[in-house]
């Protein structure tokens, strides 16, 4: 190949239309979703320990599940909520959900709708959605006194007294495990601080990949288990042997990572090739 031609190819690749990159990124995500590769996945210790904790609760235990996120992070936390609910229902646990984020209540509703039927769980008997309440840490603290006072009605406006499950549940004392799914503030750190720190409850949960490093220091002493980002959700799906959207997403995640690393390498390669030509006085 003539050196001039090589220069022009290198030069063209150096200043490649970024839309080519966009197409490759899209392909790296779409193709693995359509045709899963089944790359091996193993669960990390924080995920496994959360699984063990839920597994070891006696049947009929009450799990308080906090939906502290909104639709923007549903992609990471939604699959976690489904996997955790499936696990709880399959073990015969009762689930009480609430939300410290306004949109969390309807996300909880959607997650229950996708899981309850499969396990024959009935609203009001096996699970209850208390809905949203503003106030963050204050709400978490008030549950130690009385859930009925903080949430007199459920998400649909039904008084709690009319829900059989809630007749015997009134404070942390009646709850066996607190699961927090959190996208930020208010979220898991507050549950750890109050429910675990002050009331001695067992606390575990999930968070977005971005906030995982902030929460790792709490594991395993204050936080009994943690699912970090979509990978954490996929690990939990693996543990309960029910593959869902997170598992499907994992292949895409690996391929996309590899692609970006490749971009960095190629970008630098062409950069240096172009530069060495420059030094020799070639045309840019």
């Amino acid at each position: 190949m003539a050196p001039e031609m090589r220069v022009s190819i290198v030069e063209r690749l150096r200043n490649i239309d970024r839309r080519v990159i966009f197409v490759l990124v899209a392909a790296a995500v779409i193709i693995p979703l359509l045709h899963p590769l089944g790359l091996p996945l193993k669960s990390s210790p924080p995920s496994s320990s959360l699984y063990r904790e839920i597994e070891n609760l006696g049947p009929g235990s009450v799990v308080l599940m906090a939906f502290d996120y909104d639709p923007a992070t549903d992609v990471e936390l939604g699959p976690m909520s489904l996997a955790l609910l499936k696990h709880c229902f399959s073990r015969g646990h009762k689930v009480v959900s609430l939300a410290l984020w306004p949109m969390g209540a309807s996300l909880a509703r959607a997650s229950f709708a996708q899981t309850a039927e499969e396990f024959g769980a009935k609203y009001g008997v096996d699970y209850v959605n208390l809905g949203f309440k503003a106030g963050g840490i204050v709400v978490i603290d008030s549950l130690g006194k009385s859930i009925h006072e903080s949430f007199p009605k459920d998400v649909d406006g039904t008084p709690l007294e009319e829900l059989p499950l809630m007749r015997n549940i009134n404070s942390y004392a009646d709850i066996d495990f607190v699961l927090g799914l959190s996208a930020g503030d208010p979220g898991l750190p507050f549950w750890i601080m109050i429910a675990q720190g002050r009331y001695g409850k067992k606390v575990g949960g999930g968070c977005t990949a971005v906030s995982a490093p902030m929460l790792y220091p709490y594991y395993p002493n204050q936080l009994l288990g943690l699912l970090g980002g979509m990978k954490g959700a996929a690990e939990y799906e693996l543990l309960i042997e029910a593959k869902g959207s997170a598992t499907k997403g994992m292949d895409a995640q690996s391929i996309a990572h590899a692609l970006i690393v490749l971009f960095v390498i190629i970008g630098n390669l062409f950069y240096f090739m172009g530069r060495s030509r420059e030094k020799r006085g070639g045309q840019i």
Partner: protein
Amino acid sequence: MRREIPLIITFVCGITMIIQFFIPHWPFSDVKSYFQHTYMIIAAFAMILGICNLTRLHIFKIRDRRENWGYSIVLLVGLAIMAIPGLFQGIHEGTMFEFLFKNAHVPMNSTMFSLLAFFVASASYRAFRARTFDAALLLIAGFAVMLGRAPIGDTLTSFMPEGWQMSDLANWIMAFPNTAGQRAIMMGSGLGIVATSLRVILGIERSYLGGE
């Protein structure tokens, strides 16, 4: 009057907020949340100003038939179909507001957010280059963390002993050099914020009131 009263208000509010941190006794115990409520309420009223500004700009655009004026109609319609039911019907489940939030706002919001994946890729290709020594360091650190955070990193370095693999390198970078750098930036900008706030409270920095 136009200049002095705002400066006095800034000073009094600033000092009060500082004092409340040191005095747990009433009335200072309630000051923080009261002030927070107050400025949330001011911001909510200011929202009306913003909406007026937005509406006026686009009404003018339509009136003057400026370029792309048709899209201004789309914007105003979007605003109206969200705000009118939202204000009168409420924002709970089952309302028009909630339908639009779920099926228009959320998908557009998430899609805008997900554009970042594409931009991260193009920035990696275009700008993540070892042009200088500094840039090379940035690149190497980024590379190590990117690889170390995905299963692929450890696969590539599986010949290394336990504790010396890619994920360990990533963890080490996050824990030490990264923390040190972050901390220096945090301390510097923390001081910058403290000094700027001090100048604001004392009325030395007053550009927000218009001019020096």
